[in-house]
């Protein structure tokens, strides 16, 4: 046999493997209901609409995320923590857009006049230098996966202006919004299998959530975090419904690695995921014995390999903190258990008598979480009129009441799935705790905080489940009315949220 014949055979074998892999992907996609694809497409279209309406760099920290992507694309590595410095090409755009006077000042719109736009176009053509230092990541040295993903459109658009590239990168985020909603739909299908029509209600409710659409239309690593979290919930729903297999354990491991490399906040979901793997392992074995740890350890092995590689690169090659702790590092601060508990409590709930009150914890939970969820856009500086939040409490309470009704009626089924529910609760509690503790740490380090509703969006699958249960809580006769009403309300909420953005920036 000649060398060329052997080579041709190897090429043919490789092509065969690629064809087989593609066939498996096609078969997997074919198993996904068309309704799931439609809901995902709705999310992509909606997030794209938000990306077009929201002016450049008017989503929290967007200039810094752009800078990070630019650094990854140009240097093939994430930036080392350093004092903030934008590249000249980004700096001139932020100045021409007058960001300093628009951010935090809802009375000011973005630039309108022909003269201002002409100057922006002129400066974008004139100042092309990309010599920045990767942005302001002394406090938050986020992991590089999302930025590496965004470096693809950034690089493909080489030669384009800063704002053209930003528009393109925002589209990648919109696609991730679709991936998130696809994950939410499939999670609802697994976790709440009765009444298939209600899965659509839950997934569309998520797709039309304005805060989610705003993030989906912006350059922000939260988008990869949301997608990974949604698929992690799905993975556990499948495991609890169909059992833990090596393939599912590996899938959980891959999701843990992706989440860890997407955004540090993902660490909050890890304790719940570990509990889920342990419970599933024990259930598969029928008892707590060493063999029950076999598949959970497989998952951890899959998760650890890329995480360890990045940790090693952080230390050895990239001059970054090993675990990217940044805002979560407790070096130089002296937290106390008592104050920490009081802070975490007040982060979400009203204070109890005798609790320690730090000035930064005196915000009203409703203002941050409920109002933030209903809508605080841009750099959290764009709000509806006050009465909107009061009125929004009515459907919110009605939805909650219907959900409780469904849970009470299905309490027998709930009892049978207690372990699964505890795992979902642990996933949620871990994230809530992490966000509160990170905020407490920021308070100790520099008197700030991190109370933003977007940090809770990794729990979107549970929000979707709440909408599904509310639909079912209306009873078989009124289920259709409740479901359609929920989606119509979500759409109206989205539409008027978008109009709020238009009026804030352009009117």
């Amino acid at each position: 046999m000649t060398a060329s014949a052997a080579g041709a055979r190897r090429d043919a074998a490789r092509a065969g493997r690629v064809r087989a892999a593609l066939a498996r992907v096609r078969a997997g996609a074919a198993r996904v209901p068309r309704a799931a694809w439609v809901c995902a497409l709705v999310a992509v279209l909606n997030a794209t609409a938000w990306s077009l309406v929201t002016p450049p760099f008017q989503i929290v920290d967007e200039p810094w995320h752009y800078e990070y992507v630019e650094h990854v694309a140009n240097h093939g590595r994430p930036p080392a923590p350093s004092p903030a410095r934008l590249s000249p090409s980004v700096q001139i755009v932020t100045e021409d857009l007058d960001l300093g006077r628009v951010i935090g000042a809802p009375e000011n719109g973005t630039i309108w006049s022909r003269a201002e736009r002409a100057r922006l176009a002129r400066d974008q053509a004139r100042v092309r230098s990309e010599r920045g230092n990767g942005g302001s990541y002394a406090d938050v040295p986020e992991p590089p996966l999302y930025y590496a993903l965004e470096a693809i459109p950034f690089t493909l658009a080489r030669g384009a202006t800063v704002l053209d590239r930003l528009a393109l990168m925002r589209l990648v985020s919109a696609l991730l919004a679709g991936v998130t909603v696809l994950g939410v739909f499939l999670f609802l299908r697994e976790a709440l299998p009765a009444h298939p029509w209600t899965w659509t209600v839950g997934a569309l409710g998520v797709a039309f959530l304005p805060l989610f659409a705003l993030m989906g239309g912006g350059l922000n690593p939260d988008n990869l975090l949301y997608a990974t979290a949604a698929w992690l919930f799905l993975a556990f729903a499948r495991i609890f419904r169909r059992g833990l297999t090596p393939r599912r354990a590996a899938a959980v491991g891959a999701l843990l690695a992706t989440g860890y490399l997407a955004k540090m906040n993902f660490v909050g979901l890890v304790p719940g995921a570990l509990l889920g793997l342990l419970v599933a392992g024990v259930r598969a074995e029928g008892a707590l014995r060493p063999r029950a740890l076999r598949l959970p350890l497989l998952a951890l092995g899959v998760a650890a390999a890329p995480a360890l590689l990045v940790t090693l690169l952080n230390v050895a090659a990239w001059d970054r903190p090993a675990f990217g702790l940044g805002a979560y590092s407790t070096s130089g601060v002296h937290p106390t258990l008592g104050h920490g508990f009081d802070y975490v409590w007040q982060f979400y709930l009203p204070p109890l008598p005798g609790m320690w009150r730090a000035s930064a914890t005196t915000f009203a939970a409703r203002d941050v979480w409920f109002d933030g969820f209903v809508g605080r856009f841009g750099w959290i500086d764009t709000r509806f009129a006050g009465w909107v939040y009061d009125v929004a409490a009515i459907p919110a309470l009605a939805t909650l009441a219907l959900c409780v009704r469904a849970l009470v009626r299905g309490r027998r089924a709930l009892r049978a799935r207690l372990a699964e529910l505890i795992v979902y609760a642990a996933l949620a509690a871990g994230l809530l705790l992490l966000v509160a503790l990170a905020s407490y740490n920021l308070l100790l380090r520099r008197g700030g905080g991190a109370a933003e509703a977007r940090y809770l969006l990794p729990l979107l699958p549970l929000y979707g489940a709440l909408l599904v249960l509310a639909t079912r809580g209306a009873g078989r006769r009124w289920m259709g009315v409740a479901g359609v009403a929920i989606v119509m309300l979500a759409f109206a909420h989205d539409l008027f949220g978008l109009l709020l953005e238009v009026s804030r920036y352009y009117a």
Partner: protein
Amino acid sequence: MEGRARLPILAIGCVLIAAALAAVLAQSGVRRTGLNRVRAVAQLGTLERGRTLCQRGELVPAGTGAISVSLLAPPAGGGAVRVAVVARDGTTLAGGAAPAGWGGVARTIPLRPVLARDAVARVCVTAAGGGIVGLAGEGAADGGGGRAAIGRRALGGDLRLVYLRAHAASWWSEVATVARRMGAGHPLGGTALAVLTALLLTAAGALAAWQLLRGAQ
């Protein structure tokens, strides 16, 4: 409930949303033609009777028929105020006056004539009546003298100015103007971007409605 039975509820929802949208767009108000984006976060100084403040380098948009000036009225109420938009060659492009007896933190003064085209001009405010008027604005970012001055004395910052149309109008009548303002730096123009946004949202809504009616097929 099957898809056909859900249709009336969906139709009612669509009508309600359309009605709410129409009601919002029909709201009447005096709309902005532009603003200098100076934030009224500091008191720059005071303007005594007979003195004039001028702020150079203001971009006054076409269609401006009134100016809202960030002035702080004295406790007894503000005196009469005059305003003029002066071109670089010293020509007065438009002017107006507002009578005494105002309060609050901003004074809207009608201008005549309505500006026919964009102008880079000086905006001058004169305290024509009694009392001392406070000037609200923002210190110069570079620590310099700013653009606002009384006579030759620079105030160290800029006065907040908002340019308005002469008359109240509904949002309907402003749709085309607002659409044109979108898309700064975007390869598509503002109007095309607004149309594309509307199409995307309509497509998302239509797909959602279609899926809700299809049910779990």
